[in-house]
């Protein structure tokens, strides 16, 4: 209750700022000066652990490009605002970025928090390259300025269903956490599994932020599921794995990319987490050339890159490429350049957008927990 009251206040004042100053700045910066990039990422709240991964990944990219003389002689500059994985905080952050005069947005982690920022950026004629958030809701409004460089929920669900079928699953229980990202994948997977002829043994939504998931655990056990697919984030995922094992669940486990974090294994307990599968886009550990990149990252920030460091790094590179191609930071020109990008190498492979502004290739891999980390499943 407390959170709502204060955050609402923040978003109201921030929206006020947006109405008066939104969109007035980008025409001045159309041709000269620094290229201003803005990033919304969780720095507080339940997903605060991800913020530094994304911020450092993007900063590494900015520094590399600047060291090579920038784009057309113009330096890049990154401004980071908190999205807190909360729609109200994110909308306030977006309004702040707009009034700071950013040219391109390269942020967005939680889909539910990213969604309300899109129209704010759209009104200010700012292209948005979303590195992480991947709910199909994000492109459902068909806003021309929105681009996803992470695989979508549809692609993730396809990868998951195919893998579940290949594993010979006979009853899949789907668990989601009621957020846009999570329910999107769970629903799509349910459809895909049905069309592949795999039986779905129930679908439960739990509330994030609680500790006791005995309700969902009981439902899974009663449905006699032999595979559980959790599509939410790692905090709850770890607890659910632990509680299912404690309740005597014998089947297998898979989690979606929001749960790919070493903390999942720590929370679930290393013994419980062994052999848990995950659907995931690239991490530095799974892509060729990733190790050298991770070394550079570690030298600069003192910590190893985490999930989504690479995607944030790529978002900045894609933004720079679009500015280089269009020769300006005008929103419309950049959007045209983004739509025209073909065969630009990013970590997940070669980048080309579909007409919906999502990646043509999702690039989802299956990872598996071994020891205290995720490795590629072979």
């Amino acid at each position, binding site marked *: *209750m*407390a*959170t709502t*009251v*204060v955050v609402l206040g923040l978003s109201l004042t921030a929206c006020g700022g947006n109405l008066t100053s939104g969109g007035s700045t980008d025409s001045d910066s159309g041709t000269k000066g620094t290229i201003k990039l803005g990033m919304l990422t969780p720095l*507080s*709240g*339940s997903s*605060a*652990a991800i913020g530094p991964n994304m911020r450092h990944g993007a900063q590494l990219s900015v520094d590399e490009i600047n060291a090579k003389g920038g784009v057309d002689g113009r330096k890049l500059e990154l401004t980071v605002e908190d999205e807190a994985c909360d729609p109200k905080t994110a909308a306030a952050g977006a309004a702040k970025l707009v009034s700071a005069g950013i040219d391109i947005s390269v942020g967005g982690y939680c889909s539910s928090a990213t969604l309300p920022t899109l129209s704010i950026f759209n009104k200010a004629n700012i292209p948005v390259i979303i590195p992480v958030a991947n709910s199909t809701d994000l492109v459902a409004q068909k806003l021309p300025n929105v681009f996803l460089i992470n695989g979508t929920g549809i692609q993730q669900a396809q990868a998951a269903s195919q893998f579940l079928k290949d594993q010979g699953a006979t009853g899949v229980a789907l668990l989601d956490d*009621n957020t846009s990202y999570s329910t999107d994948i769970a629903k799509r997977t349910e459809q895909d599994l049905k069309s592949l002829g795999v039986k779905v043994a129930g679908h*439960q*939504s*739990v*509330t994030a*932020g*609680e*500790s*006791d*998931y*005995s*309700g*969902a655990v*009981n*439902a899974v056990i*009663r449905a006699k599921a032999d595979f559980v697919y959790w599509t939410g984030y790692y*905090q709850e995922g*770890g*607890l659910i794995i*632990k509680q299912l094992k*404690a*309740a*005597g669940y014998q089947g297998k486990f898979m989690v979606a990319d929001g749960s790919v974090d070493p*903390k999942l294994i*720590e*929370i679930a*307990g290393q013994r419980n987490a062994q052999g848990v599968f995950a659907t995931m886009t690239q991490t530095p550990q799974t892509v060729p050339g990733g190790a050298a990149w991770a070394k550079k990252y570690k030298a600069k920030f003192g910590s190893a890159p985490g999930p989504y460091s690479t995607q944030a790094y790529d978002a900045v590179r894609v933004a720079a490429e679009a500015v280089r191609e269009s020769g300006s930071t005008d929103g419309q020109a950049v959007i045209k350049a983004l739509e025209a990008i073909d065969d630009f190498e990013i970590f997940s492979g070669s980048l080309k957008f579909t007409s919906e502004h999502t990646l043509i290739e999702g690039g989802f891999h299956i990872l598996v927990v071994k020891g205290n980390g995720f490795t590629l499943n072979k």
Partner: protein
Amino acid sequence: MNHFIQLVLDGLFVGSFYALVALGYSMVYGIIKLLNFAHGDIYMLGAFAGFTVLSVAAGALGSGIAALVVVMLIAMVATGSLGIVLERVAYRPLRNAPRLSVLITAIGASFALEYGVAVAFGPNPEVYTLEVGNGALNIAGARLSDAQLAMMVIAVALMVALDTLVRKTRSGRAMRAIAQDPKACLLMGIKVDNVISRTFFIGSALAGAAGVMAGAYYGKIDFLMGFIIGLKAFTAAVIGGIGNLRGAMLGAIVLGLLESFGVAFFGSEWRDVFAFGFLILFLTVRPTGLLGERVTERV
């Protein structure tokens, strides 16, 4: 049939956590009519205090229930003391201010505690290393793990101790007297401030104990963990009759069972809808709660 027993056990287990937190809510409300919205965060602080003790002295303590009890006692002293500080700093200066000001201070204190811990420990969830038994009991086909049983026994022991304290001791009589009429107590020579401090100590210590239990059982703690349980404990206190201690325990058990059965019949996403739906129902139909006659007397 075994499914039914499983649901009852799950409900009782969750209810015993709610009860420990709800008692503090109810005690503070009973004595100074303050809804201490920072109370859930005291629970969170208890979890972190226990975590700190474990990371400093994990080797010396070993594992198992004995270690849990030691960690819990240390955390209880820590959160109890913090409860006293909280009352001194945030609530006592406003004792004669309008009710709303105190409520706002409580919300402010809640934020200060949450984000203070986020700064001190980082926003990442932390993981308890303590293991409390691996076995499980089979009760007519339903499953109750050793850890769950241990937690429930500890919770009941703490509740019985509190109940005895309030009903049988001088100190408890002073608390009940202040709940009736603080001004008259002052005239009778009771040190009202001391008794209020003591109430905050006991309530916060119980919440701290629940925090350590949650850490040890669920394994994961984070700085926002107190928020939802704070609201649930408040709900339990209202269902039982806020200000009434046995009511708080009863309300917590009822809430735990309601959630357990609600989830089983309607699905997990209905858990909070159910809990807070009942809060609204009780506030409209029977605002004094199940055992709340005492409140009516006062009003």
